[in-house]
Structure formats: C-alpha cells, structure tokens
C-alpha cells in the first residue's frame, strides 16, 4: 500500500520561501483579476439550459394513467398520493360494478417532492415524465399541492421580469464551463 506525497511542499519558516510564496499568491491574484474570465451567469437575465433527462417537476398524462398506484407506493417522501375524483364523483357509482369505488388518480405535493424520479421510472405506462421546470416559486405552501386535475394541467411556467437569455453550459478546458447561447 504505497503512499504518494502531494503538491504544496513545506519550506519551514524560511523567509525567502515565504517571500516567494507571497509573491506567487499576489501574482496569481493579479492574473485572475486581469486575465481569467468569470464563470457565473447573471441568473434572472441569463438562464442555464438543463440537460435532457433532467429530473424536474413532473408532467402527468392522465389519459395514460391506469390508476395502478405504483407511483404513490414507491414515493419515498409521501409526496404522491392517490386522490378520488373531486366534485362528488365518488357517490355516482356509474361503473359496471357499483360496489367498487371510483378510480383514484395521483396528485403531488411539491412541498414534499424530492425529485428522485422513482415515480417516473416505475410508471408502467409512461403517464409520468419529467419536465425541465425546477425554479417555480410559491407564495403559499398550500399552492404546492396539486390534485390530479391540476397535476394533469402540467407544471407551472416560470415567468421572468425581462425575457432571459438561455445559455447552454459546455465544458471548456480553459474556463471550466463556457456558455453557448441557444436560440
């Protein structure tokens, strides 16, 4: 089990080493002050595009849903629950088997959701998928609960004061991340 010694040698308290260290530190600071570009973006004016497969807020296709309840079963945060149809639909009992309760459908509480995506991966019909919406803000915690019919209406759209510039992050050997504008 060999060890390996690493960068950053020790020069003891040698004043010459110290002086050289001070010069190198200040020089590096100056280099970054002058020559190295920034790596942050001006967020609400510039927005970073998310990659495909990003686990954002959910899209629910109610037409594909078979009410199997797997999403609610697997949800680790108890965010997805199965809801009875609202508006008194429960008492109607118009189906072929009157004693079976009406089908339940999933609704989601984004105050609990942890965006693990287990529900999407286990959904046998593809009724759930991820959108790229991740930065919705709410004024009241109750608004974060989406019953099935609201859930089916899609994730909220995020509005900006000024239309933001969309940027795609690309790895860059010199800058770390550089940002390419997308149309």
């Amino acid at each position: 089990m060999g060890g390996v010694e690493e960068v950053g040698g020790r020069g003891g308290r040698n004043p010459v080493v110290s002086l050289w260290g001070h010069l190198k530190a200040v020089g590096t600071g100056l280099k970054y002050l002058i020559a190295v570009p920034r790596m942050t973006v001006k967020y609400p004016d510039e927005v970073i595009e998310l990659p495909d497969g990003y686990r954002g807020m959910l899209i629910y296709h109610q037409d594909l849903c078979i009410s199997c309840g797997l999403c609610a079963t697997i949800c680790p945060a108890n965010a997805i629950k199965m809801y009875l149809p609202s508006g008194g639909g429960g008492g109607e009992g118009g189906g072929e088997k009157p004693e079976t309760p009406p089908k339940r459908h999933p609704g989601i509480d984004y105050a609990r959701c942890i965006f693990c995506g287990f529900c999407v991966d286990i959904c046998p019909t593809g009724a759930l998928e991820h959108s790229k919406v991740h930065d919705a803000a709410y004024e009241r915690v109750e608004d974060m609960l989406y019953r099935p019919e609201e859930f089916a209406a899609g994730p909220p759209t995020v509005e900006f004061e000024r239309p933001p510039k969309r940027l795609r992050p690309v790895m860059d050997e010199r800058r770390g991340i550089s940002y390419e504008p997308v149309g």
Partner: protein
Amino acid sequence: MSGAGSGERTLELLIGPQHPASGHMRLVAEVDGDVVVRLRPDIGYVHRTVEKIAETKTYLQTIPLIERPPLADTANHNLGYVMAVERLLGVEAPPRAQWLRTLLAEMNRIHSHLYGLGIHGIMLGSSTAFMWAFGDREIMIEMAKRLTGARITYSYMIPGGVRRDLPPGFAEEMEKALRYLERRLPDYDRIFFSNPVTRARLEGVGVLTREDAIRLGVVGPNLRASGVAYDVRRARPYAAYPELDFQVVTRSEGDSMARMLVRVGEIRESIRMIRQILARMPDGPILAERYAKMIPPKWRDYVRETGRIKFPAILASLRPPKGAEAVSRVEAARGEAVFYLVSDGGPRPYRMRMVTPSLRNVVLFSHLTRGCRVADIPAIYGSLDYFPPEADR
C-alpha cells in the same frame, strides 16, 4: 459577564449553533486567555433519526433517505447502502453498472473534497479559496447532472445496477472538465495551499499522531494524513476498484495542512481514475438480469435506446430472506461509511445502521483542540471536513 466570575481564569465560549463557522453544531470551548483548555462538541442539532425512518420505508425508498445526511457526498453513501442491500438479496450488479457506480462515486469525491476545501478556506478567511472551490465544484455537479438528472441527490444506484447509462458525448466533455481541473490545481496551490499565511495557520496545528488516529478509529483523509494507509478501496475493493490503478494518498505529518493536502492528492487520484473508467468501461447491461427481465416488455426498446432504466414493479417491494444480515463498507469522500442491515423477511429493513465518516471523526474535536489557540478552532474544524448533518443523521 457570565462565565468569568471573580477568581476564575477561564471563559466559556459557546461557538454555535448560530455562528458563521460552527456549522449545525455547538462547540463549547473553555479558554484561558487565547488558549483552549477544553473543547466539547455538542452535536445533534440536525439529527433526523434516519435509522428509525428507514424502518418505515422500503429498501428502495431508503436510498434518498441515505443521501440526505451526507449531502455533499451522496453517491458514495448510496453505493454503500445499495451494496448492503444487494448482499441481503444475493444479487450482483453487472460489470458496466459497477463501473458507472465507480464513475459517479469518484466524481462525487472530487466535488465533496472541493466543498470541504472551500469551507476550510472561508474558515481561515480566504474568500477566494471558498469561491473557487465552490465554483469548480460546479464542474463535477454539471457532469453528474447530465449523467443522473440531478445535481446532488442522485439516487443513481439501485439494487442490481444503476438507473441510467452514459449520455452521448459524456466522455469527451468529461475529458475537458478533467483537464480544466488539472490546470486549476496549481493556481489553488499558489493562492491558498502554499500561501505563507495558510501555511502559518495550518502547519503543525492540530497534530494527530498515527497511534491516536488508530486508537480513536478516525477515518478517511484524516486517518491517511497521519500516516495510516487505510482505504476501503484498497483494503476491501468493491465496484470497479479492483481493476483501477490508483494510489492511496498518505502523509506523515498528521497536522491540519497534511489533512488538506491529502484531499488535494485524492482529487488528483480521482481525476486519474475517472480517465481510466471512461477509457476502459465494459459494455453490457446496467441492471442485473434478475430485475431486467421483469421490465415490462413495452419498455424494452425505450430502455435500450435511451439507456434509462424503467423500474420493474418488484423494486417497490424487495424482500430479502428472513434473518439475513449484511455489512458493507465504502470509502466515502470524508472517510469510511459502514452500513449494517438486518432483515426480518419483510419489505422494510428491520434495523438499518448507518455509521458515517463524520460520526467517527467527531471524537477529534476534543482531542485535537486541547492547548490550541482560539483561532485554531476553525482551522482544525475545517481541516477535518466535518459535516454536522452527516454525523447527526
């Protein structure tokens, strides 16, 4: 003034839990002038009873739970837990999944170490080290986001394999990212690691001898900085580590500087490992055949084309045999993480023991600070890369 009545020499300082450099914990320091006589860590401010909650969740649902405490280092703990579950179930992930797990674990190690270095920087007053490390951490987070779909809480490894295959173009982008990090490390060295002020603050401060490190059961870079070449990746190799060429970074000084430099060395080793992984990754399935054949037939094409697994329904209720027990250990970024699972045949763990690296390092607070200066407290704290939620769980 309370705490310093007449005739008393010492003053009791309560550092935290609301203090810029305490994290979610309290350090009760008894100081005599500028010298710390005694320091007692008071932890538990972010305790969330993960072990109890795990008894109410299924084996799969426990994965995100495991990821919460060690927030900067989710992948390694995810891996350790999944390894224990696989041992309970007697299932093994296919080779490609093992390599993908190792890839994410090493990416996570880099960004976790950068997180630790950044926090250490700001504790010493170097805002530049802090901002740089947190900025460059973003490189690995961005790459992990492309691989897993999430920035930090990946939940990427599941019993039997991983959830997603490499996205197109990943290796080329990663190579650029790694070259960038390699270019940056010398600048970190010039402005922070070798900065004479940093060296004055860290060299010879908080020295942990080899004997004490072993006796106290310290883990991770803190252990290796005291000259003990123990690394689970070498002592009991798991995932793809048996096939990777890497060195266990150690130093002999045992001081705060050594602990920091071991982390820097591990970042370099992780860069080397990621290169090897991407160059030599075997082809093949990413989910064990036992579960892959249970994926609904209509999704087989989707899985093949996108490289994203659709869960078979059985994952929602995995049941290991009654009475089965499993221990697993992984080298997480901050040190060894140990998982101990006991099954009663039901779909939920009967007992889930999660021993995180920070829990095992908490003993160092009182040990290393005896006789140090008040200003050394953050210097030593930062050098331990201690993360209160990880210790409290």
